[in-house]
């Protein structure tokens, strides 16, 4: 077990290195001068060169990369060109907000998804199954940013039950767990939960249907085990995979929150990315993507190792 975990961690290192290379390359993929957003258009050549030297853009690529990587390992992932503050400071607040949103969305999606999936798998090929399947097709087909707009139109613009956008009176600086603030979280979280819901429902339906058709369940029924007992067995066997899917989905939501955060003006990493892109703040863009991708890699690793612990059937040498 410990051998497997350490092997898995060792295999993750080259991937992390690759991720840093991709993040670094992003800046150099960008057309034009990386300093275009801070320099006045009529800046002299001398000033331009001084600024290039200051940010290290005049060095060869591999040297720039190694310097950047070395600093990143020490926690310094650059300075925002626009605000002049460290990128890490800019990100830390946003990560918390996105995490809050994504975690709530995953929880809602997981609850509803497993519910639909279980019902569909249990009553396979009945109208219940078809309805649940239709719902999951809806979940994977709907453009969620549009769904967010529709929910705003219905619940904010028309009914006036919930606020449309933002993070409450305290903004991102002063969030509190009270109704005044939490009501701002409801619409984005519900919108976001549709993404994992469809996928979790599909997975759970397939799992339940497969487990129910296995010989050991047939055997348990033949031995006279109650339906509740059978249900217990199904839950026990489906749980590791379903939880793993949930973990991966959380990772996708963390990295893919940009569209929903833009619709709801939610002050998370997505909105930060949006700002970075349109103000051509490349260090901020690079840093945010690096942090989110690393989060995703680590989460995958944790899910994988956890699944091995939870599911004794998976033998990994």
């Amino acid at each position, binding site marked *: 077990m410990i051998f497997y975990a350490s092997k898995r961690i060792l295999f993750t290192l080259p991937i992390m290195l*690759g991720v840093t290379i991709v993040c670094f390359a992003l800046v150099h993929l960008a057309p034009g001068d990386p300093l275009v957003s801070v320099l006045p258009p009529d800046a002299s050549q001398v000033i331009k060169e001084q600024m290039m030297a200051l940010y290290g853009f005049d060095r060869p690529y591999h040297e720039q990369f190694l310097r950047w990587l070395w600093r990143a390992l020490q926690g310094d992932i650059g300075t925002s060109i626009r605000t002049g503050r460290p990128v890490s400071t800019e990100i830390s607040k946003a990560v918390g907000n996105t995490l809050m949103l994504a975690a709530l969305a995953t929880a809602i999606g997981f609850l509803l998804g497993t519910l639909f999936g279980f019902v569909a798998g249990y009553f396979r090929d009945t109208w219940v199954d078809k309805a649940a399947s239709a719902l999951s097709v809806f979940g994977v087909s709907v453009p969620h*940013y549009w769904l967010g707009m*529709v929910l705003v*139109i219905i619940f904010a613009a028309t009914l006036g039950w919930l606020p449309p956008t933002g993070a409450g009176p305290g903004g991102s600086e002063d969030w509190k767990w009270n109704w005044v603030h939490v009501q701002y979280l409801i619409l984005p979280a519900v919108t976001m939960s549709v993404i994992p819901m469809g996928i979790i429902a599909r997975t759970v339906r397939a799992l339940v249907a497969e487990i129910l058709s296995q010989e050991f369940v047939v055997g348990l029924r033949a031995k006279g085990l109650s339906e509740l007992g059978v249900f217990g067995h199904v839950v026990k066997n489906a749980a590791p995979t379903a939880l793993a899917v949930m973990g991966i989905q959380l990772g996708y939501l*963390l990295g893919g929150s940009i569209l929903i955060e833009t619709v709801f003006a939610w002050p998370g990493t997505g909105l930060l990315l949006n700002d970075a892109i349109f103000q051509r703040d490349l260090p901020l863009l690079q840093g945010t993507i690096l942090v989110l991708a690393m989060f995703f890699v680590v989460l995958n690793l944790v899910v994988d190792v956890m699944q091995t612990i939870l599911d004794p059937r998976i033998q990994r040498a």
Partner: protein
Amino acid sequence: MPERAQEILRSPGYWVTVWRRFLRDPVALLAALVVLGLILMAVFAPWIAPQDPFQGMSLQRLKPPGTEGYPLGTDELGRDMLSRLIHGARISLFMGIVPVLCALAIGAAIGVVAGYSGGWTNTLLMRTVDVFFAFPSVLLAVALAGALGPGLFNGLIALTLVFIPPIARVAESVTTGVRTRDYVEAAKASGAGALLIIRKHVLGNVLGPIFVYAMSLIAVSMILAAGLSFLGLGVKPPQPDWGLMLNTLRTAMYTQPLLCALPGVMIFITSIAFNLMTDGLRSAMDIKT
């Protein structure tokens, strides 16, 4: 040699069987017809659209659906919504289908080569793919499009790069499954070289599953592309594009809610049609023997 008395009886091939099974699935068939209709609409947009999608009347801004002369209303610049929605199908379908096709060509090549070669070639190719797989797809698309800058072509590149890793992974795993089959061994034993075996024995058995997987990505690609446009990273105004229209009409959310939901309805219908068609094809291909 005497002429054969009887013509050889030929069984219907695999794809003929799949096609017949597909035709018996009403939901999938309906979805396929919707897709066909959308494609025809996109191709013949200039002839179908009642008005010029670029020409706005400043006095006719944000008219609700049902207005005289504008069956689906007008947008914030007074342009006919119906015409813009019809023209918008062009970019949406293009951005749904073309990046997936490009990624299919590249990803399938990577995956089949990796899967058939095994060993170091496999490790090298698949570990590289894993690096791109380590980014959530939305993040990767936004990052690439953000770095490259807005525009149709940059969006195409970004989305192609997003879909290469998953297609390569699927291709690698099905190819690895086929490679160790006895019929591949038998082909090797008859003295055939690797390229001939791949062409005659491997591709016929792996392209089907890879193709179905790629088809399931068309809806994802379209939603993602519209999402990039929605963020302002896709096509530039005044191009009629469903994602961009969603963005520009957001200002009318309180005054004309129905109007501003329309482009999203089109995206939704298209992606549902593609998904149901793919589901139907997948189950038609799942022939138990």
